[in-house]
Each structure stands twice: as structure tokens, then as C-alpha cells.
């Protein structure tokens, strides 16, 4: 039964660059009783309006005649969490572009409307989607509150009804199970969906993701490759991502680079070029990095999807390639756009110092370095720190440069991407011989701390073990390896002491929240959350039985 209520309460946004079309759509919405309508004629205005208002319906033309197309805008606002669960997003496309747009993404808007759009098209889809939203609300509202177990239960109830929303409920259940770290169960749910329809891309992708989460990277790779090799899935970039992530996790960053590059050919978006550029730089393919970052920076200049990091990394690439004056031009050009961007200034100064060294102006470079040092705090595992370290090394300040690189390692000693960048910085500045010592000594000292804590735990010196790892997590608040270990050791302490110690539980939650920010969506964090939930479950059960 389609939605029967009134539509007049809906506040709508039309995103369309043609004035005539704006008027037509506005008139069609008015026919449906929707009169509270805002209009944006480009992606930037739309972004501003979406942030400031709470729309129930967004109607967006795919072709905005601007650098950002409708799909990029949709993905951007979605990733930024700007689309509330009760907002419907309709994409308006031309017949000719519909198939190619819809095939490249698993994140579909709520509906695609093909031109010419009629009022009854809008009404039909609007009512159908409102009905769907209503039906799935028990699940989606719990997911929005991160109540994963509640969402799981609600999806089971929906599945049991075997109604119109059966497949959607299966899809939500699979996602929830993956988030819960229950990849075996998730796989079973996706396989159940595939029994209904063996060619369902979201279900095939779900199985591949479950395999990746289980650490079966070869199997995940093979399944995702099957999707890409099939006619209906050849443009599914999410499948490329599963492959790239599997390759990186199994120690093949170069393979991941080529996979990302293939994906950027399928969907040449700013985001895709950025991913290729970043990976290419780390892997030392400077020509590819220059090309991809140049595209990302140029295509997004002044648009909502622009990021300062594109220009900064492009400048670093140009310095490394031996085109320092070109690097300086990029930095100066970017300066106008990122004046107020936190972090741009400091890194830009480090790069400027590198340029000055490379162009034989050591005195200038010293002055610039002074300013760069002043604006960077304690070294972190990030590009800004490595860029400053590189400038120090180029200026002959070996000790300062190596110390910064050591800090970068300690800040996140299991981060392979940072290690790749540091290795490159040392090689570029003639310090190949120090790669092993810098990386290994810093890694080893972190590793020792962790090993000590685990040994103390084995010796039943629980409080001593917790003390060490708590200090480490305090000292290196963004070290993902330390935070994961700290969460685990604290969980083990909970289990050993058999009490629901509230402050300790709060500490673990804090570690996990930090990890979520540092490694969003990462399988290891998901598994640690699962371990934490199981720990609480065990204690709860024993508490009730005693």
C-alpha cells in the first residue's frame, strides 16, 4: 500500500542550473502540494542550503554544468552526514546518462527520475519511497543511534514478515552484522539474498566484504574481481575498493595502487584522483602522482569537494620530481583558497623551505623553516610532520629531521602508509642507510612497551600491565596499534577481575571512539568493538548468575 498521507509538510530543495527547469519542477511540486521549496543553481549553493536546513526532499539534476556533478554532490553530503535519515534524494538524469550513472555506485539516491519528469512520476516515486522509509524506520532509526543490536532485532522482525521490504531488510541486516564484526553471519545473510537473485551486486559485494573482514583477502579479491568481470558490475567502484583494501592488508601496496588507478578510469571523480595520487606518491610513482593530484586539485578548485591536501601533496611531488618553481606556483595559487584552512599554512611553509633549498636559497630556507617549526606542534604520524622533517634533512639539520621522523613512527607505529612516506623522505634526502634504524628503533620501542604490558598481564600483574598501556595510550593518543592493544588489555583486565568497572569501561569506550576516528570503518576496530561487547556480555551473564 503506497503512502497515503499529505505531502504538503515536506520542505524541498531543487538543485538545477537551468532557470526554465527550476520553474517547471517548482510547478510540479506545487501540484503535489509541496510549496516550501528552495532552489540552488549550483553545487556550492546547494551544499550551503543543505547544511542550514532540514529538507525532506532534494531533487537534483545530475548535470549541473559545473565541476561537481549531481552524483558527486550526493556522495559528498552523504559522507559528511548531512543527509538526515528522513531526507529523500531524487536524481534527475537524461536517458543517455542514466545507465552509466546508476551502474557506478552502490550508494544510490532514493530514486532516479528520467527526463522529461512529470508531476505524476514525482508523486509515484515520492509515495513509494515514503512508504519504504516508514517500513524500514525501525531499523534505520536504531542504526542512526548506533544501536546495532536493536537494529539487528528490528531487521529480523521485518524479514520474518516476508513482505515488500524483504530484500531491503536483508541488506540492512547484512550491513549491521558487518558493523558488529559478525562477518560469518553477514555472509550467510548475503548468501540468502543471492538465492533470490544470484546477480544482486550489493549481496555479492557483501560476501566479498565479509571475506575481507575475516582476513581471507585472496577470497575477497577473487569475489570482487568476479563482480568487475561481469557486465552488470564492471563499473562498480566499490568492488575495486574491496580489492585495493585486500591488497594493502596483505602487504601489496603497489597492487592496491594499480587497482585504485583502474577505478579512477571508471569513475574519474576528484575523490578517485585523490586516492590514486596519494597512493602513487607513497609508492614512489611520482609521474602518476603528479598527474592524478593535478587533476584532483584542478577539477575541484573552489568547489565543495576541494581539499588543501591535494595541492600540498602535489607541491611535494613536484619538489621530489625536481620542479621546485612549479611547486612554488602551486602553493601560491592554493594559498588564496585555503587562507583559513587549519594546517595548510604550516605544511605550506615546510614545502616552501624545501623549494628554497632546492633552488639554492639556503638563507631564505632557514628563515622559512623557523616559521614552519613554530607552527607545528609535537610530531604526528601525518604528512605535515614528514614534510617538515624532509625540509630539515634537506637543510642539513639531520638530528632534528630524524627526531621528527622518529616521532611520526612512534605516533602510530603500525601505520604502513606513514612508514612508506618516511622511507621515501629518507631516500630522497640521501639517508637510505637510516631507513632501518629510524623505523625499526621507533617501532621496536613501541612494540616493547606493548610486549611488557602483555607479559605483566600473563603474570597476573593486571594493574601494572594496565598502568603501562594506559601511559602509552596517553603519550601517543593517536597511535592506533597502541590504542587497539590498550583496548584489548583493558578488556582482559575486566574479564580477569570479573567486575563491571565503570571507569574502566569508560576508558575502553574512549579508546574505541578514538580508533573510529583514526581508522574509520576498519575491520580491526570492528573486531575490537565486538570483543568489548562480548566482554561486557560475559560479565553481565556471570553477574546475573552469581
Amino acid at each position, binding site marked *: 500500500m*503506497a503512502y497515503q498521507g499529505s505531502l504538503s509538510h515536506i520542505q524541498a530543495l531543487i538543485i538545477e542550473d537551468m532557470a526554465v527547469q527550476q520553474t517547471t519542477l517548482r510547478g510540479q511540486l506545487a501540484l503535489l502540494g509541496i510549496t516550501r521549496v528552495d532552489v540552488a543553481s549550483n553545487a556550492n549553493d546547494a551544499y550551503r542550503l543543505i547544511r542550514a536546513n532540514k529538507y525532506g526532499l532534494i531533487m537534483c539534476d545530475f548535470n549541473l554544468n559545473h565541476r561537481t556533478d549531481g552524483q558527486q554532490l550526493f556522495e559528498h553530503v552523504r559522507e559528511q552526514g548531512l543527509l538526515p535519515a528522513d531526507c529523500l534524494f531524487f536524481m534527475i538524469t537524461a*536517458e543517455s546518462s542514466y545507465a552509466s550513472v546508476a551502474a557506478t555506485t552502490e550508494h544510490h539516491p532514493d530514486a532516479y527520475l*528520467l527526463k*522529461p519528469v512529470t508531476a505524476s512520476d514525482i508523486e509515484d516515486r515520492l509515495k513509494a519511497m515514503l512508504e519504504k522509509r516508514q517500513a524500514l524506520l525501525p531499523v534505520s532509526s536504531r542504526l542512526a543511534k548506533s544501536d546495532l543490536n536493536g537494529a539487528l532485532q528490528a531487521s529480523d522482525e521485518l524479514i520474518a514478515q516476508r*513482505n515488500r*521490504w*524483504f*530484500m*531491503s531488510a536483508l541488506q540492512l541486516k547484512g550491513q549491521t552484522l558487518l558493523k558488529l564484526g559478525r562477518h560469518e553471519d553477514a555472509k550467510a545473510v548475503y548468501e540468502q539474498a543471492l538465492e533470490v537473485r*544470484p546477480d544482486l551486486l550489493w549481496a555479492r559485494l557483501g560476501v566479498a566484504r565479509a571475506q575481507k573482514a575475516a582476513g581471507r583477502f585472496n577470497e575477497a579479491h577473487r569475489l570482487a574481481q568476479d563482480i568487475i568481470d561481469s557486465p552488470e558490475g564492471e563499473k562498480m567502484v566499490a568492488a575495486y575498493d574491496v580489492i585495493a583494501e585486500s591488497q594493502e592488508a596483505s602487504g601489496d601496496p603497489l597492487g592496491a595502487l594499480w587497482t585504485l588507478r583502474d577505478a579512477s578510469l571508471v569513475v574519474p571523480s576528484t575523490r578517485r584522483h585523490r586516492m590514486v595520487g596519494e597512493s602513487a606518491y607513497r609508492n614512489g610513482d611520482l609521474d602518476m602522482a603528479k598527474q592524478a593530484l593535478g587533476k584532483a586539485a584542478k577539477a575541484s578548485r573552489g568547489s565543495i569537494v576541494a581539499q588543501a591536501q591535494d595541492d600540498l601533496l602535489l607541491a611535494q611531488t613536484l619538489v621530489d620530481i625536481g620542479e621546485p618553481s612549479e611547486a612554488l606556483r602551486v602553493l601560491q595559487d592554493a594559498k588564496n583558497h585555503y587562507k583559513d584552512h587549519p594546517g595548510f599554512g604550516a605544511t605550506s611553509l615546510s614545502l616552501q623551505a624545501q623549494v628554497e633549498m632546492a633552488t639554492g636559497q639556503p638563507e631564505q630556507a632557514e628563515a622559512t623553516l623557523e616559521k614552519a617549526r613554530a607552527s607545528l606542534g609535537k610530531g604526528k604520524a601525518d604528512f605535515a610532520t614528514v614534510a617538515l622533517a624532509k625540509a630539515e634533512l634537506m637543510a642539513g639539520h639531520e638530528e632534528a629531521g630524524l627526531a621528527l621522523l622518529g616521532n611520526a613512527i612512534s605516533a602510530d607505529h603500525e601505520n604502513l602508509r606513514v612508514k612508506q612516506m618516511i622511507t621515501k623522505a629518507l631516500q630522497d634526502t640521501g639517508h637510505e642507510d637510516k631507513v632501518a634504524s629510524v623505523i625499526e628503533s621507533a617501532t621496536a620501542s613501541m612494540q616493547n612497551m606493548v610486549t611488557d604490558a602483555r607479559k605483566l598481564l600473563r603474570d597476573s600483574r593486571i594493574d601494572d600491565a594496565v598502568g603501562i598501556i594506559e601511559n602509552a595510550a596517553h603519550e601517543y593518543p593517536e597511535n592506533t596499534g597502541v590504542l587497539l592493544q590498550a583496548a584489548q588489555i583493558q578488556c582482559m583486565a575486566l574479564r580477569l577481575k570479573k567486575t563491571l568497572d565503570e571507569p574502566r569501561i569508560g576508558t575502553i569506550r574512549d579508546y574505541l571512539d578514538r580508533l573510529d576516528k583514526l581508522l574509520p570503518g576498519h575491520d580491526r576496530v570492528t573486531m575490537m568493538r565486538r570483543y568489548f561487547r562480548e566482554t561486557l556480555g560475559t560479565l553481565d551473564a556471570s553477574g546475573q548468575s552469581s
Partner: protein
Amino acid sequence: MSDALALIAHDLKNALGGLEGELAELIDHPTPVMAQRAHLHCAELRRQFIQFLTLYGARTDGLCALCEDESPLDLLQALQRVWSVKLQMEGSAIQVATQPSCVDTAPAFWYFDHRLVQLALDAAIHNAVRFARTRVEIGVTQADGWLVWTVHDDGPGLDADDPGQANATGLGTALAEAVAAAHAHSGRHGCIQLGSSPGLGTTFTMALP
């Protein structure tokens, strides 16, 4: 296929000529009734152009069906609403009704391309309305792993002369055929069928895997 498309384009051009004549007459004798008729013909022509363009876009690789889980009953009821309003506006006495048994026999969901199936059924209903005496009945049911759509009219049957020959292009049937063929699942492809018995009318059937 390209020959058929050329013939269809030719027919569309003739229909456009008819509309041009109506508009020319409107200049000399403007009346609301005349304007409304021209508007209806214009909307009808646009509908046919959409069908034509859909077919035209499919001439090299065939139509591409992007199937989602949809409610067959919802689509049927939406078509019925649109056609009832349209026939009423045209002053036609023909009724478009949904088979009552559908509510029980239609599956809760099925995988099909909503837009393409809507286009095909719309074309089939358009045909049926031309032949029907009083009534067109549309239905959907599930049989042996197929989703079976039916459009039945109570007209004189297939061998009869087409009362609206001048407006017929063959476009609808070609489109429905292409839409059905575009729906494939586990090695099976959709198909259409036209059957009739004298006096009992004609039934258009489209089965999707």
C-alpha cells in the same frame, strides 16, 4: 531494427503534422475545447517520442534493464489511476480496472526495471483502449517462477480492423518486446504474447523471469 525505427519516425512525423493542423485551426478559431484536444494530442505525441527514444537508445546493444525489487501491484495501481484520469479527460466511456484477484496473487516484490516495464505496459494499455468496447482489465500474477502481466480488452479480437489505425505506429509492440527481452534472470528471458478469441477480446501478456 533501424528500418522499423525509420517507419516509426515517419509515423511520428505525420502525427506531428496533425497537431500542426489543429494548432493552425486554433489560430483562426480559438476555443478551449479545441485547445484541450490539441494539448492532449501533444502529450500523447510526447509519450510516443519517449518510447521511440527508449527504443532508439537500445538499437545497438539492446535495452539495459536495471532491476530493483519493486511492488508489481503498486505499479499496476499507479497505471490504473493515470489511465482512468486520462480517459475521463478525453470523455471516453472505457473503464480501466485492476483484476480483483491481483491483490492476493501478485507477489510482494519482484525484480524488474520499473521505468521500462511502466513504458511497456503503458503502450499495451494504449493499444487495448483503442480496441476495447467498454473495459480494459489489467492484472499481474506469479506463475512457475515468472511474473506475468496481462492487459485484456473486450474488443472484437485480433483479426478485426484497427479502429484507430491512423494513430498506430507499431511502436508499442516493438517496445514491449524489447523491454521483455531486456529482463533476464538465470538464463531465462522475458517474452510477450498476444492472444484472442472472437468476441472475447484480446489479451496482451508479458512474462518476466
